[in-house]
């Protein structure tokens, strides 16, 4: 009893350190993406061919790339674009995924069957193929990436929420609430959402990581966004040929991806026992 609560307390402290580090990393990424483009006056697309591959710490704070563009400005704009797109993607996957999962669990019957078939259909498609297909429709645009990734990612929210909610809706607490005269909205708000919120949080953290990676990887292979847009994946592609002359430059976008994913994993993950 007391021993157990002392143990829980210790675990809570450990989790919070871990979470705190993750939150700090994410706060850095978020603030850099939000404020960076405003604070850095330089134009991320402005070339200065007489000052290419300037070292870090010169008149360019983070150096300049192979076209003499400010790395700081490019990195700030890329962070806004990549992280913002990832955030938007997981939100627009989580909201319909959760809502449809709840509807399927509540209604059952043919509603559930149709939704499950739909989710299975999406799962049967290779996710990137869908994104590639959409990207082919509108080369260089943002929306195919966003739409494609959301269409792929909502399924896991749907499946997790439906499975958890089905169990919860059959539980005595929900039966009691129904007998006490409460409707679906109250049951979802009071009995279901508090239980599934941590699960959704974890899925969103990992989903955002997957989205960052997917956006970066697609841009890296030249699908989706195109130069001169500043984006982590594009920056990696552009700087890769200069890895011998300016290895530090390549590390900047790679480091941003690393920090973002690490932060998300620390926040969303669970401590090993």
């Amino acid at each position, binding site marked *: 009893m*007391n021993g157990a609560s002392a143990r829980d307390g210790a675990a809570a402290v450990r989790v919070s350190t871990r979470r705190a580090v993750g939150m700090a990393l994410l706060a850095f990424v978020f603030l850099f993406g939000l404020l960076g483009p405003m604070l850095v006056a330089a134009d991320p697309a402005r070339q200065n061919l007489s000052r290419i591959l300037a070292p870090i710490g010169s008149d360019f704070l983070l150096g300049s790339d192979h076209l003499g563009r400010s790395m700081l400005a490019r990195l700030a704009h890329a962070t806004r674009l990549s992280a913002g797109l990832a955030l938007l993607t997981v939100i627009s996957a989580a909201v319909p995924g959760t809502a449809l999962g709840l509807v399927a669990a509540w209604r059952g019957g043919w509603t559930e069957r149709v939704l499950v078939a739909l989710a299975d259909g999406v799962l049967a498609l290779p996710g990137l193929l869908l994104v590639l297909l959409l990207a082919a429709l509108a080369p260089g645009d943002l929306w195919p990436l966003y739409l494609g990734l959301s269409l792929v990612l909502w399924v896991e929210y749907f499946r997790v929420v439906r499975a958890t909610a089905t169990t919860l809706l059959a539980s005595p607490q929900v039966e*009691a*609430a129904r*007998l*006490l005269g409460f409707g679906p909205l109250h049951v979802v708000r009071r009995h279901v959402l508090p239980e599934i919120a941590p699960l959704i949080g974890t899925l969103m953290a990992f989903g955002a990581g997957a989205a960052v990676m997917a956006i970066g990887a697609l841009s890296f292979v030249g699908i989706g966004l195109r130069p001169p847009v500043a984006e982590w994946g594009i920056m990696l592609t552009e700087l890769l040929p200069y890895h011998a002359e300016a290895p530090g430059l390549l590390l900047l976008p790679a480091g941003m991806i690393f920090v973002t994913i690490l932060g998300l994993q620390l926040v969303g993950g669970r401590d090993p026992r």
Partner: protein
Amino acid sequence: MSAALAIDDLHIAAGTLALVRGVSLAVDYGAALTILGDTGSGKTLVAEAAMGTLPAELSARGRVGIAGRDFAAGPGAAQRALWGRAIALLPQEPWLALDPTMRAAKQVAEVHRIVRGAAVAAAGDASARDLSALGLAAAGRKYPFQLSGGMAQRVALAAVHAGGAKILIADEPTKGLDADLRDDVVALLRGEVSRGAAVVTITHDIAVARGLGGTVAVMREGRIVEVGDAGAVLTAPTHDYTRRLLAADPAGWPEPPVRAAGPLVLAGRGLAKRLGGRTLFERLEIELRAGEAVAVTGPSGCGKTTLGNVLLGLLPADAGRIDRPGGHAPVRFQKIYQDPPAAFAPRATLRTSLDDVCRRHGIAWTTVADLMERLRLAPTLLDRRPDQVSGGELQRVALARVLALGPVFLFADEATSRLDPITQQEVLGVVRAAIARDGISVLVVTHDRRLAAKVGSTVISLDENGVAPATQRTAAC
């Protein structure tokens, strides 16, 4: 030390909180010792200290003597070498302790082979012999999930036997078993005693203590408040707590008042229900009148909870119809659950849960406050979550929650089976008061026949064959 098992001045603490304070007990071979106490009295900790299985975060001091060897009480398992050979534990709910993927005979043979070092063939023979000695010859080929609770209990006992231990600790051996099987288990344990084993039984069930005889130690809040011969302690207790415990035994309760029942509130006509290919009941007639309690009893799986759920409209009946004369709102037909925490939103405070009900139905908070007072619930409980109050308190909060709605019918589904006897009496006292004062009609479902007889003015027995109902002592209309 001459005693088979001796515990000397045992103290167990979690941090600064003392859980067991100065317990000394001894039991000889061929004798029974029963530790009787409520949840949280520390009785299981005493057994764990004897076995050497205390959780690591607890600190303990004192001595434990097992079969002439002396150990310091404490976490860690210095006693491990004696497990199975000299001292053995008969687990609670053995159907959970048996390996679900192994046939019964193999589980017993395994002990012969590994603990006793018998050859494979000899172990198999010994296992078959053990099982047939317990009347389980046919069960050897079965898996645990194919065994009834009583049979699983016997298989576990056979496995414990096979190790050859002469000191047996049985932790709540009747938990989850029906009354009929309880007597069976008591007989099994008595058999062990007569074969020369030292049997220590941990229980909250007075009937078990009475059936086992020997020595009874009554524990409360980590102390032994009374110890002595079972006959003496259980008939002429000297300690106040023991007296209250005995008074809480349903056997000693007053008979339910036979009252002129009020108008019909709910009736089931020709009800039938099949579940999982089995007929639970058919052509069942039941009438529930205002101010009257009807008790439904029977072994687990007989369909008594299903009957209540059918009457509440939570499950459809296969045949027959439900009448609700009087035109009461559906919300006035309510239910109280077996496991109180399962019936509340776990992350909401009790105040939030009760406030939700008040707002949904436009009930003034004073109604709830009055009910809390009537049910002797401290207002400070309101700011706790369901897992932060005791089972008895939470069950009374659940009652307050449904009574606030002015119910005409209440289905109490094993509502006290997880509570200790004193709390059970308290909760049922509240239900009885609600029947008498508010004229509520109550359906009590319980596996405890004695309890059913004491609360129901009508008792319906469902048996395993689904043939119902034997109605006794119907209230005079």
